[in-house]
Protein backbone atom coordinates (compact mmCIF):
# COMPACT_ATOMS: atom_id res chain seq x y z
CA UNK A 1 0.00 0.00 0.00
CA UNK A 2 1.28 3.41 -0.98
CA UNK A 3 2.94 5.44 1.69
CA UNK A 4 0.50 7.95 3.24
CA UNK A 5 2.86 10.85 2.64
CA UNK A 6 3.10 9.92 -1.03
CA UNK A 7 -0.70 9.87 -1.16
CA UNK A 8 -0.67 13.41 0.20
CA UNK A 9 1.86 14.42 -2.46
CA UNK A 10 -0.42 12.92 -5.10
CA UNK A 11 -3.44 14.76 -3.69
CA UNK A 12 -1.72 18.12 -3.28
CA UNK A 13 0.04 18.18 -6.63
CA UNK A 14 0.12 21.51 -8.41
CA UNK A 15 -3.09 22.72 -10.04
CA UNK A 16 -3.12 24.64 -13.27
CA UNK A 17 -4.06 28.29 -13.14
CA UNK A 18 -6.98 29.43 -15.35
CA UNK A 19 -5.97 30.06 -18.99
CA UNK A 20 -6.71 33.79 -18.70
CA UNK A 21 -4.65 34.24 -15.53
CA UNK A 22 -1.53 35.53 -17.21
CA UNK A 23 -3.44 38.03 -19.34
CA UNK A 24 -5.30 39.28 -16.27
CA UNK A 25 -2.08 39.83 -14.35
CA UNK A 26 -0.56 41.78 -17.24
CA UNK A 27 -3.75 43.81 -17.55
CA UNK A 28 -3.75 44.58 -13.84
CA UNK A 29 -0.12 45.64 -14.00
CA UNK A 30 -0.86 47.89 -16.96
CA UNK A 31 -3.88 49.40 -15.17
CA UNK A 32 -1.82 50.02 -12.04
CA UNK A 33 0.88 51.83 -14.00
CA UNK A 34 -1.54 54.13 -15.76
CA UNK A 35 -3.26 55.15 -12.53
CA UNK A 36 -0.07 56.32 -10.82
CA UNK A 37 0.35 59.93 -9.87
CA UNK A 38 2.09 62.48 -12.11
CA UNK A 39 5.16 62.34 -9.91
CA UNK A 40 5.66 58.62 -10.34
CA UNK A 41 5.05 58.88 -14.07
CA UNK A 42 7.71 61.57 -14.20
CA UNK A 43 10.09 59.51 -12.07
CA UNK A 44 9.52 56.44 -14.22
CA UNK A 45 10.11 58.46 -17.37
CA UNK A 46 13.40 59.81 -16.04
CA UNK A 47 14.52 56.26 -15.29
CA UNK A 48 13.37 55.19 -18.73
CA UNK A 49 15.49 57.91 -20.39
CA UNK A 50 18.55 56.56 -18.57
CA UNK A 51 17.95 52.95 -19.62
CA UNK A 52 16.48 53.64 -23.03
CA UNK A 53 19.90 53.65 -24.76
CA UNK A 54 20.17 49.88 -24.28
CA UNK A 55 16.62 49.46 -25.67
CA UNK A 56 15.89 47.03 -22.87
CA UNK A 57 13.36 49.11 -20.95
CA UNK A 58 11.16 49.84 -23.96
CA UNK A 59 11.36 46.29 -25.17
CA UNK A 60 10.40 44.91 -21.77
CA UNK A 61 7.37 47.20 -21.27
CA UNK A 62 6.25 46.71 -24.82
CA UNK A 63 6.48 42.95 -24.47
CA UNK A 64 4.24 42.90 -21.40
CA UNK A 65 1.66 45.18 -23.02
CA UNK A 66 1.82 43.30 -26.30
CA UNK A 67 1.24 39.86 -24.84
CA UNK A 68 -1.52 41.00 -22.54
CA UNK A 69 -3.29 42.89 -25.28
CA UNK A 70 -3.06 40.07 -27.80
CA UNK A 71 -4.37 37.59 -25.27
CA UNK A 72 -7.28 39.86 -24.39
CA UNK A 73 -8.07 40.50 -28.05
CA UNK A 74 -8.07 36.76 -28.80
CA UNK A 75 -10.47 36.08 -25.94
CA UNK A 76 -12.71 38.91 -27.09
CA UNK A 77 -12.91 37.48 -30.60
CA UNK A 78 -13.90 34.06 -29.26
CA UNK A 79 -16.56 35.57 -27.03
CA UNK A 80 -18.08 37.68 -29.79
CA UNK A 81 -17.94 34.82 -32.28
CA UNK A 82 -19.93 32.59 -29.95
CA UNK A 83 -22.38 35.38 -29.12
CA UNK A 84 -23.12 36.30 -32.71
CA UNK A 85 -23.27 32.68 -33.84
CA UNK A 86 -25.85 31.81 -31.20
CA UNK A 87 -27.89 34.94 -31.93
CA UNK A 88 -27.77 34.12 -35.64
CA UNK A 89 -29.00 30.58 -35.03
CA UNK A 90 -31.84 31.87 -32.89
CA UNK A 91 -32.84 34.47 -35.47
CA UNK A 92 -32.84 31.84 -38.21
CA UNK A 93 -35.03 29.52 -36.14
CA UNK A 94 -37.49 32.31 -35.40
CA UNK A 95 -37.66 33.29 -39.09
CA UNK A 96 -38.16 29.68 -40.21
CA UNK A 97 -41.03 29.10 -37.80
CA UNK A 98 -42.62 32.47 -38.73
CA UNK A 99 -42.52 31.58 -42.43
CA UNK A 100 -44.10 28.19 -41.74
CA UNK A 101 -47.12 29.78 -40.02
Amino acid at each position, binding site marked *: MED*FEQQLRNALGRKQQPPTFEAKVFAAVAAQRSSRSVFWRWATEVAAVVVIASGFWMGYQHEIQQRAGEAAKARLEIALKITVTELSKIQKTVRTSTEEE
Partner: protein
Amino acid sequence: MTFAEVLRANQSMVFSLAFHFLRDAGAAEEVAQDVFLRLYQKLDELDGPKHATFWLRKATSRRAIDYVRKRGSRPAIALEDIAEPPTAEQPGDPLLNRRLRQLVATLPEKPRMVMVLRYQEDLMPEEISDVLDMPVRTVKSHLQRSLAMLREKIDRSMGDIR
Protein backbone atom coordinates in the same frame (compact mmCIF):
# COMPACT_ATOMS: atom_id res chain seq x y z
CA MET B 1 15.09 38.29 -14.80
CA THR B 2 11.97 39.89 -16.27
CA PHE B 3 8.57 40.05 -14.66
CA ALA B 4 7.13 37.94 -17.48
CA GLU B 5 9.75 35.23 -16.86
CA VAL B 6 9.06 35.12 -13.13
CA LEU B 7 5.32 35.06 -13.75
CA ARG B 8 5.52 32.19 -16.21
CA ALA B 9 7.87 30.15 -14.05
CA ASN B 10 5.82 30.52 -10.87
CA GLN B 11 2.18 31.14 -11.69
CA SER B 12 1.20 27.50 -11.30
CA MET B 13 2.94 27.26 -7.94
CA VAL B 14 1.33 30.43 -6.61
CA PHE B 15 -2.16 29.63 -7.84
CA SER B 16 -1.89 26.07 -6.61
CA LEU B 17 -0.71 27.08 -3.13
CA ALA B 18 -3.61 29.46 -2.83
CA PHE B 19 -6.10 26.95 -4.22
CA HIS B 20 -5.12 24.06 -1.96
CA PHE B 21 -5.25 26.39 1.01
CA LEU B 22 -8.44 28.26 0.18
CA ARG B 23 -10.29 25.51 -1.78
CA ASP B 24 -11.91 28.25 -3.86
CA ALA B 25 -10.67 28.81 -7.42
CA GLY B 26 -11.99 32.38 -7.58
CA ALA B 27 -10.38 33.37 -4.29
CA ALA B 28 -7.15 31.61 -5.28
CA GLU B 29 -7.04 33.58 -8.51
CA GLU B 30 -7.64 36.82 -6.62
CA VAL B 31 -4.87 36.09 -4.12
CA ALA B 32 -2.46 34.95 -6.83
CA GLN B 33 -3.10 38.04 -8.91
CA ASP B 34 -2.55 40.28 -5.90
CA VAL B 35 0.74 38.53 -5.10
CA PHE B 36 2.06 39.02 -8.62
CA LEU B 37 1.04 42.68 -8.58
CA ARG B 38 3.12 43.12 -5.44
CA LEU B 39 5.95 41.16 -7.00
CA TYR B 40 5.91 43.57 -9.92
CA GLN B 41 6.50 46.44 -7.49
CA LYS B 42 9.29 44.60 -5.69
CA LEU B 43 11.02 43.01 -8.66
CA ASP B 44 14.09 45.23 -8.46
CA GLU B 45 14.71 44.17 -4.85
CA LEU B 46 14.86 40.49 -5.73
CA ASP B 47 18.08 38.64 -6.21
CA GLY B 48 17.38 36.20 -9.01
CA PRO B 49 14.91 33.41 -9.80
CA LYS B 50 15.38 31.41 -6.57
CA HIS B 51 14.86 34.48 -4.43
CA ALA B 52 11.77 35.34 -6.46
CA THR B 53 10.31 31.87 -5.86
CA PHE B 54 11.02 32.10 -2.14
CA TRP B 55 9.46 35.57 -2.01
CA LEU B 56 6.38 34.33 -3.86
CA ARG B 57 5.88 31.37 -1.54
CA LYS B 58 6.14 33.68 1.46
CA ALA B 59 3.81 36.32 0.01
CA THR B 60 1.25 33.75 -1.12
CA SER B 61 1.19 32.03 2.26
CA ARG B 62 0.74 35.31 4.06
CA ARG B 63 -1.88 36.65 1.68
CA ALA B 64 -3.89 33.41 1.71
CA ILE B 65 -3.93 33.25 5.52
CA ASP B 66 -5.00 36.92 5.67
CA TYR B 67 -7.74 36.22 3.17
CA VAL B 68 -9.17 33.44 5.31
CA ARG B 69 -9.01 35.58 8.43
CA LYS B 70 -10.92 38.40 6.74
CA ARG B 71 -13.48 36.06 5.21
CA GLY B 72 -13.97 34.02 8.37
CA SER B 73 -12.97 30.44 8.95
CA ARG B 74 -15.82 28.80 7.02
CA PRO B 75 -15.19 28.24 3.30
CA ALA B 76 -17.40 30.31 0.95
CA ILE B 77 -19.06 27.19 -0.46
CA ALA B 78 -19.37 23.62 0.74
CA LEU B 79 -16.20 21.61 0.34
CA GLU B 80 -18.06 18.96 -1.64
CA ASP B 81 -19.07 21.59 -4.20
CA ILE B 82 -15.55 22.82 -4.86
CA ALA B 83 -14.85 22.68 -8.56
CA GLU B 84 -11.42 21.34 -9.21
CA PRO B 85 -9.29 23.30 -11.67
CA PRO B 86 -7.85 21.22 -14.49
CA THR B 87 -4.66 19.33 -13.81
CA ALA B 88 -2.31 17.20 -15.69
CA GLU B 89 -3.08 13.58 -14.93
CA GLN B 90 -2.59 13.06 -11.20
CA PRO B 91 -1.20 9.79 -9.88
CA GLY B 92 -3.02 7.77 -7.25
CA ASP B 93 -6.67 7.10 -6.52
CA PRO B 94 -8.72 10.17 -7.59
CA LEU B 95 -11.34 9.55 -4.93
CA LEU B 96 -8.72 9.31 -2.21
CA ASN B 97 -6.95 12.39 -3.60
CA ARG B 98 -10.15 14.40 -3.46
CA ARG B 99 -10.96 13.24 0.06
CA LEU B 100 -7.46 14.09 1.27
CA ARG B 101 -7.71 17.58 -0.20
CA GLN B 102 -11.05 18.10 1.53
CA LEU B 103 -9.59 16.96 4.84
CA VAL B 104 -6.52 19.17 4.52
CA ALA B 105 -8.91 22.09 4.01
CA THR B 106 -10.45 21.39 7.43
CA LEU B 107 -7.13 21.94 9.23
CA PRO B 108 -6.58 25.22 11.08
CA GLU B 109 -4.78 27.86 9.00
CA LYS B 110 -1.16 27.52 10.08
CA PRO B 111 -1.02 23.68 10.06
CA ARG B 112 -2.91 23.71 6.73
CA MET B 113 -0.33 25.97 5.11
CA VAL B 114 2.47 23.85 6.59
CA MET B 115 0.95 20.74 5.01
CA VAL B 116 0.45 22.39 1.62
CA LEU B 117 4.04 23.68 1.55
CA ARG B 118 5.35 20.28 2.60
CA TYR B 119 3.38 18.11 0.20
CA GLN B 120 2.80 20.41 -2.76
CA GLU B 121 6.24 22.00 -2.79
CA ASP B 122 8.20 19.21 -1.07
CA LEU B 123 9.79 21.72 1.27
CA MET B 124 11.72 20.48 4.29
CA PRO B 125 10.65 21.72 7.74
CA GLU B 126 13.59 24.17 7.84
CA GLU B 127 12.49 25.70 4.53
CA ILE B 128 8.86 25.91 5.70
CA SER B 129 10.12 27.61 8.84
CA ASP B 130 11.81 30.30 6.69
CA VAL B 131 8.75 30.80 4.50
CA LEU B 132 6.30 31.10 7.37
CA ASP B 133 8.63 32.73 9.93
CA MET B 134 7.78 29.90 12.28
CA PRO B 135 10.15 27.97 14.58
CA VAL B 136 11.24 24.64 13.09
CA ARG B 137 9.98 22.86 16.22
CA THR B 138 6.48 24.28 15.61
CA VAL B 139 6.55 23.27 11.93
CA LYS B 140 7.45 19.70 12.87
CA SER B 141 4.77 19.60 15.52
CA HIS B 142 2.12 20.81 13.03
CA LEU B 143 3.25 18.18 10.53
CA GLN B 144 3.15 15.37 13.06
CA ARG B 145 -0.26 16.23 14.45
CA SER B 146 -1.82 16.94 11.06
CA LEU B 147 -0.55 13.66 9.62
CA ALA B 148 -1.94 11.72 12.57
CA MET B 149 -5.29 13.47 12.35
CA LEU B 150 -5.56 13.01 8.58
CA ARG B 151 -4.58 9.33 8.80
CA GLU B 152 -7.27 8.71 11.39
CA LYS B 153 -9.96 10.59 9.44
CA ILE B 154 -9.14 8.94 6.12
CA ASP B 155 -9.22 5.49 7.75
CA ARG B 156 -12.64 6.25 9.17
CA SER B 157 -14.12 7.72 6.00
CA MET B 158 -12.71 5.29 3.47
CA GLY B 159 -12.13 2.11 5.39
CA ASP B 160 -8.84 0.30 5.49
CA ILE B 161 -7.65 0.78 1.92
CA ARG B 162 -3.98 0.48 2.79
